[in-house]
């Protein structure tokens, strides 16, 4: 069983960020930077052996036949500035939006981008409300006038000036701190938000995945059951870690006045927590959607899906205090060897179009 699990990274950066390729053999492989700051990709061993292939990013299209969508995504990531989960997501949505992965991927990417815009607006408004509340000012007037209206914006400016004054800051400084904070927590949202943001939703879905996988693996006699149990365990550890980080972040934002006043110190805490959260949950959207799709299918397909999830499951890096996950995965693999799953049509070596389209569908659901 080839798997990314037989490689034990120390940090999230070593582990790399998952890339939503539609070429089956490359689906959810990870990209990271090497010691010379060049991009490289980690591909699970193709011959069922141990270890992973580390391929320079530039050479990837030469090493593997890729779909046109993946070539485009490959180019976008190469041209981008970084390879954090947020950078990869941005490139993924841009690639999906152009239509190379089909009409459903376009619709899913556009919906995700709309959701991002809504969240951005919401978080900005909520942070302004928090700022006003921190100095004892009411924000209902703004809401009544309408946030986007000229009157609403005038009211906001006035009240924010008063708030800045109370906090002993220049209004522009207060605005810039709020804007920076909004950028950090944009994908997480506030705990009090009426509409949970993407990573909060993802964490909830991950809990659902853990429960569903645990139920499935319990009392199941198939050879995939211990693998499913392991996947549930990894999800459990990830959820626990994410919950702790989310709590830190929520606490920091809840003490809003302290956060703004001690901005130089607290911004580092918030930024680190937000970054860590996005790394922790990176790669799970696709796996959750893959499992949700398999739940209503036959036992055999569920077994195959569990193997597929295991192949690319995001293990916690050693530095996150879960150093045993990689060796546990290794032991599991030794005990559960199974045959290679073909990703290409063996007669022609061409990509299996049906499999590519299945990945596109799952990817659309995960966007």
């Amino acid at each position, binding site marked *: 069983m080839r798997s990314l699990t037989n490689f034990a990274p120390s940090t999230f950066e070593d582990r790399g960020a998952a890339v939503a390729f539609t070429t089956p053999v490359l689906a959810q492989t990870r990209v990271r930077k090497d010691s010379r700051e060049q991009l490289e990709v980690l591909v699970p061993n193709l011959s069922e052996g141990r270890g992973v292939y580390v391929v320079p990013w530039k050479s990837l299209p030469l090493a593997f036949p890729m779909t046109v969508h993946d070539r485009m995504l490959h180019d976008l990531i190469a041209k981008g500035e970084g390879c954090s989960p947020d950078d990869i997501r941005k490139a993924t949505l841009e690639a999906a939006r152009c239509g190379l992965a089909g009409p459903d991927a376009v619709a899913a990417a556009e919906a995700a981008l709309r959701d991002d815009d809504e969240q951005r607006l919401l978080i900005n408004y909520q942070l302004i409300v928090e700022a006003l509340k921190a100095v004892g000012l009411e924000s209902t007037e703004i809401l009544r006038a309408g946030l986007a209206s000229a009157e609403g914006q005038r009211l906001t400016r006035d009240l924010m000036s008063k708030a800045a004054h109370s906090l002993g800051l220049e209004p522009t400084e207060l605005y810039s701190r709020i804007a920076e904070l909004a950028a950090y927590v944009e994908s997480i949202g506030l705990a009090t938000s009426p509409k949970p943001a993407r990573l909060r939703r993802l964490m909830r879905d991950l809990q659902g995945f853990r429960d569903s996988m645990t139920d499935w693996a319990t009392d199941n006699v198939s050879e995939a059951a211990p693998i499913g149990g392991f996947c549930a365990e990894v999800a459990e550890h990830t959820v626990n870690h994410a919950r702790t980080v989310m709590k830190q972040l929520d606490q920091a934002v809840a003490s809003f006045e302290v956060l703004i006043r001690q901005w130089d110190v607290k911004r580092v805490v918030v930024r680190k927590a937000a970054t860590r959260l996005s790394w922790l949950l990176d790669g799970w959207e696709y796996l959750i959607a893959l499992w949700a799709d398999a739940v209503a299918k036959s036992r055999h397909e569920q077994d195959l899906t569990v193997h597929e999830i295991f192949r690319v499951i995001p293990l916690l890096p050693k530095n996150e205090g879960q150093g045993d996950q990689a060796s546990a995965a290794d032991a599991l693999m030794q005990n559960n060897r199974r045959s290679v799953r073909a990703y290409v049509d063996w007669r022609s070596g*061409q990509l299996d179009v049906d499999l590519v389209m299945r990945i596109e569908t799952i990817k659309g659901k995960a966007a």
Partner: protein
Amino acid sequence: MEIRDLLALGDQLLHIDEPKFRQIVQLLEQMGDHPDIQRTIAVLRPRMAELRINRRPTLKRLFCDPFEDLFETFGKSEPAPLSVIERSLMNSLWSMVEAQIGKDRLKGYRGALQEGPQQKAATEAFWAETAAVVADIAAEMQAGRVAEAFRLRVTPDRVRAVADIATILSIAPDIRDLKAVLSPKPVTKLHQDHLDGIQDIARRIARGRPDALKIFILVAASRLSEPAVLLGGLWDMDLGRADRAALFMDLSGTVMAQIEGRSRSLKGGPGAAPDRLAVADLAVDLVASLDATRDAMERSRNKSFDQRLKEVRGSVHEMVRTQVLQGADGGIVTALDGLGDGTGDRAQMAQAENQARALRKCATIADQLGLRGELKAVTQKTTATLTDKARAALGRGPAGPASRTGYTAIRMIELIAGSAEANKVMDEILGGGRR
């Protein structure tokens, strides 16, 4: 939950998660034989079959066990058995069997439903008795006397099906052994151990019940993903005293009739737009069946089916030509135009993608059908039109207003001609400043 609420959910129940689905099936089973419940179970049956839910053992289920592989299939993707038994026929027949044996006597067979040392003997006794009862019913039907309890219209097919059930029940223990040999269903590739297992049982049947041999082979074939594959194996089997040649011819006739029936099944009605991908899938399956049958015929040096094989091949050729190749480029290009002027929708685009995939699928069988040239011409013409569209749309740069149409055209090329070709076109259009 009230039964009414449950029934109102109907086919939504097909999409709930597995543990809940199993609970609901259990709940429905406990509610008895009410027609509404039977209807709901009928809706759920495809998924129940897929999940292989272990149903509560009943005598009716035990009665069906030997011939369940011949029940009509749920979806087009599964191959139909070579000899089909309707579920409604079985329901009707079971009521008659139940009435004739009598409830009290049937109670005596309860041991067949419980695990233990008595189970095997009780099961075999039950099958033997039901076989005798069904054989009587079949004889009456063949003589033109039909009991009122048989609530269906009597047709030659149904008379044949009842006789088949009687025969299968009479060799039920052998069928049980066959199921053990050919498991799990469907068997995708016949290995030597499968063939040896079938041969041993078939020889046993040939000694005791030679008339049951054909239906036994039909049951065996229905457990394969491609029933025609058994034909090849059958020719090499030593079936003892049985007339292998006659059996082979008989079975070949059945296989041919089924292939012919399937080849007629998707002949589009006038005005109806064919589902091109479904036609392509069917064509690929039919060509596989034809090849397996032809191989078997060649091994047996039998030429009597040559003409029919040729005719079916001709009809598949025609089906692919008229329903997949003809006008393929039009549908795909129209969908692209709709994208440009904003009139297109996702359904239209999905249909165009299916057309493109159908073309690609047919590339695997074009040689066998003698359609290579025609397919190549259609593919080249469509690819050329799409390349022009992509060039026009992306010529002003990858972020231009029509870029979506351009990229979609390239995706269509990918679906038709593969990623390598599509990447080549993309590189040509966008040149050095790719994407």
